[in-house]
């Protein structure tokens, strides 16, 4: 089982690398390093703040875009090109295929983020002329960005098991936007009455709470992050992505592949 899972995972990763998905990070790193000296000139005293906000937000956005655009084709492309036929005729269970694809894309995003992180820290050193203890906190923000990717990959994969790539992309983007404002949705639910309260509450718990996984602003202002938040967010991301992947497996297990 592990051999088959790792084969599918590595092949998904290899596809992303050879399709030059990771080339975006070269652009990211070059832009960030090139722009680093400019931050100091346009924002005296705030250069670190701006660099952290711009750098981490770009990392998050780049990753989500990759998660969605690669994720929507993970299953549908294999069906459309019939590569799945030769996989399912082997001793590969359908759930292994889905889980392998999930880890393959997640691995791509983690490598992508890792390389972006290196570029980001280089830009930080150039801007701030060195690193401080507070800069280690940025790693927690980056870890949370990876947790966001875990959730988004699982959701996109879920959509790709039953929908066309275009609709999958629309659904995933919609959930990403709503999820970014999940806290506002909760606040709206708290203020509502009757049926709308129930509906808003249900929606608030159903959509991914990406807001709680975004601590970029906190990290930029060097505010500490509690260990319990790290733990809670980790558990949340693992459970949410496990639930979405399970739903993807349940749909895919029953699907006739035309």
């Amino acid at each position: 089982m592990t051999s088959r899972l790792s084969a599918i995972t590595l092949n998904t990763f290899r596809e992303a690398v050879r399709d030059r998905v990771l080339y975006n990070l070269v652009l990211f790193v070059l832009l960030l390093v090139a722009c680093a000296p400019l931050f100091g000139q346009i924002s005296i005293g705030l250069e670190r703040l701006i660099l952290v906000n711009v750098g981490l937000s770009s990392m998050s956005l780049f990753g989500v875009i990759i998660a969605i655009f690669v994720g929507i084709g993970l299953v549908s492309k294999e069906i459309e090109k019939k590569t799945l036929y030769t996989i399912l005729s082997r001793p590969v269970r359908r759930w292994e295929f889905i889980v392998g694809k999930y880890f393959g894309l997640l691995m791509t995003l983690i490598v992508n983020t890792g390389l972006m992180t290196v570029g980001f820290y280089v830009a930080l050193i150039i801007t701030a002329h060195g690193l401080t203890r507070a800069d280690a906190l940025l790693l927690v923000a980056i870890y949370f960005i990876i947790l966001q990717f875990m959730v988004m990959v699982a959701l996109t994969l879920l959509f790709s098991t039953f929908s066309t790539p275009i609709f999958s992309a629309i659904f995933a983007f919609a959930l990403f936007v709503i999820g970014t404002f999940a806290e506002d949705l909760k606040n709206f639910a708290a203020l509502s009455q009757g049926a709308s309260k129930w509906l808003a509450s249900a929606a608030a718990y159903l959509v991914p709470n990406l807001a709680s996984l975004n601590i970029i602003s906190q990290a930029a202002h060097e505010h500490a992050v509690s260990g319990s938040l790290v733990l809670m967010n980790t558990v949340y991301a693992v459970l949410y992505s496990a639930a979405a992947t399970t739903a993807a497996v349940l749909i895919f297990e029953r699907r006739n592949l035309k």
Partner: protein
Amino acid sequence: MHAIEIRGLSKDYPVGFWKKKLRPALKSLDLTVAVGEAFGFLGPNGAGKTTTLKLLMGIIFPSSGTARILGQHYLDPAIKKKIGFLPEQPYFYDYLSAPELLGYYAQLSGMPALERSKRIGAVLERVGLGDAGNKQLRKFSKGMLQRVGIAQAIIHDPEVVFLDEPMSGLDPLGRHEIRELMQSLKDEGKTIFFSTHILSDAEALCDRVGVIHKGELRDVGVVNDLRSNVAGKSEVIFEGAHASAKVADLLSESHITGETVRAIVQSNDLDLLLEKLRHHRARLIAVTPLQGTLEDYFLAKTSEKTASEAVRP
């Protein structure tokens, strides 16, 4: 034990806006294929050949019925180690090289790493791609891709090989090469189940063929038997031109050269003709059953009405 045993396998697709109507793609297929046999599954486009193969591979699920491969349930993962499959007009991950692709499939089939590396080179040599090197598949020709397709189907040394239209879209040379490969698999004792609408390929390779049309299996049999069945005609040569006029109603055609008559008769009427010829004192020289082609047989079977059509008023 049969290599393949299909019992009542059928597949209906829901159609229409509300998906309430069912369109049968395969109607209660019963079929067995012996171990070591090369079986040709013939039928025009849309007859149900690919549906049958997709069902057997677990790509789609049957509406009813089941199948066993080498005695085990066809969806049992253990049995999938023993089968190989080449889909119709296959597409493979074009960012991989041929050795990478075979390595991937071998790993999915559960082959140990050491065995994999030995086998990849041997199989590539066998399909004539020994010099393909690390070139990505996107640079391969159609014929090369088809050979890669055969290579992935046999990389794990399966006992039963399913091939869906393996020669379709290939030039004559490519078809010849694939046919040679299939023949060598057959010589090794592998069971081959392949679908095709190219009858000469089936004629050259198959021990038995089955004809499917509109989702219904029309006939199964040994190629030679089927050809003679379909002919249904015999050539009768006799001396006695005077007799030919008396039996003219029984003859579909006749040529008279002097006293010798060469006539074609429906096999059903053969006994009656011979009796009349004796009665009219003609001298029988030869009776030869006419050998039809597989194409005659195929056309005869695919033009027959389906069972459901036959019962309609």
